[in-house]
């Protein structure tokens, strides 16, 4: 296992070794921050802090898993951005670029490591025999986080040869690939009609219980991709979007 991240060191320093013990309110307290839950109209969470103390407010109207991620995110700001004002013009909140060095991305990474620490997730991934939504959901439930957040962490941990891709009815919204995958395995922009994902999103089919095989050219368009098969399994997201988990053949590993 690689070096521990800041969030992981924080957990270890507090003697937290099991997912059920990741009590974010108490973790915030140890860092001098208190947490309020209340309706917020135009953002997920805020933090106001001085030298040693901070008040974090989290949107109580959001789903529980999102609230946890948002609290982890603000704790990330408290860790990395203490003494910085990341609000801009009057009444507005800055929209930073989402590159690796942006404060928002760094706070997201901190949140991911706090609620899904690698040292707890990796041993569980090693026991996962096959990449399925059921197994991923079990992991998400154990850590009390969303399935999407769990899948993003699984991508980062590079344990399975996988791609996750989010589509709406017209276009690809975003995608992520495991670092082990060759760069030409990039999912196509528009959802192919022959995919099970299209069945679900466009024709109202039910979620598949297991990943199903499909020719790779339903998902990719590089030359020769029709020689391979991929496994796909999808679930619906809010706002008429669908997230698909693709398990790629070993030939996709760079």
């Amino acid at each position, binding site marked *: 296992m690689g070096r521990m991240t800041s969030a992981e060191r924080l957990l*270890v*320093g*507090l*003697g*937290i*070794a099991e997912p059920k*013990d990741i*009590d974010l*309110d*108490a*973790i*915030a*307290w*140890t860092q001098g921050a*208190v*947490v*309020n839950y*209340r*309706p*917020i*109209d*135009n*953002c*997920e*969470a*805020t*933090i*106001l*802090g*001085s*030298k*040693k*103390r*901070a*008040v974090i*407010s989290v949107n109580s109207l959001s789903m529980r898993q999102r609230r946890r991620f*948002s609290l982890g*995110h*603000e704790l990330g*700001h*408290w860790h990395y*951005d*203490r*003494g*910085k*004002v*990341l*609000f801009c013009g*009057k*009444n*507005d*909140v800055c929209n930073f670029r989402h590159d690796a060095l942006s*404060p*928002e991305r760094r*706070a997201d990474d901190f949140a991911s490591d706090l609620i899904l620490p690698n040292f707890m997730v990796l041993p569980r991934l090693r026991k996962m025999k096959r990449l399925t939504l059921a197994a991923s959901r079990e992991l998400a439930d154990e850590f009390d986080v969303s399935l999407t957040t769990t899948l993003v962490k699984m991508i980062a941990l590079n344990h399975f040869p996988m791609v996750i891709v989010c589509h709406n009815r017209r276009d690809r919204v975003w995608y992520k690939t495991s670092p082990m995958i060759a760069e030409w395995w990039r999912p196509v922009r528009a959802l192919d009609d022959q995919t099970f994902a299209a069945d679900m999103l466009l024709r109202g089919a039910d979620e598949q219980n297991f990943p199903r095989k499909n020719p790779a050219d339903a998902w990719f368009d590089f030359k020769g991709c029709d020689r391979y098969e991929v496994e796909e399994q999808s679930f619906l997201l809010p706002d008429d979007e669908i997230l698909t988990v693709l398990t790629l053949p070993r030939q996709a590993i760079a």
Partner: protein
Amino acid sequence: MSRDPTDREKLSKLDRAIDDSILEASEADLREDFKEAGDDFEKAVARAGRALEQAKARAARMRFERAQDESKAYREQDNVKSFDLAKARCRFDGMRSGEVAESTMAARKGGKLSERDEENLLKDLAQLEALENEDKVEWEE
């Protein structure tokens, strides 16, 4: 005129002297001592290391459990006794413009703040001030 030390003081002095002799002993001396006692030095070091790690983890766990109790108790009490809106707004504006040093402000997935959001941020600021005041009182005590 100095008094004779009590038995407790004598015992404590002896205790400290034993600790010092262990702490000041060279590794070679310790190895020799372990050999004489028929014990394995490397195994004893590993044993001590494990005991230290376990003790650290137990202490961390106890601190965290205390933090869980304290944060729960804090949530259950009325944390802002008085709220001066004008003062909070003045500080908020100062923080936002960078005039108030060592301020942290951020929001996740934010857009334009609504009137209610801004009012609640001012309440958060009053809460922050109450926390700072508590710290000051503790420091003075």
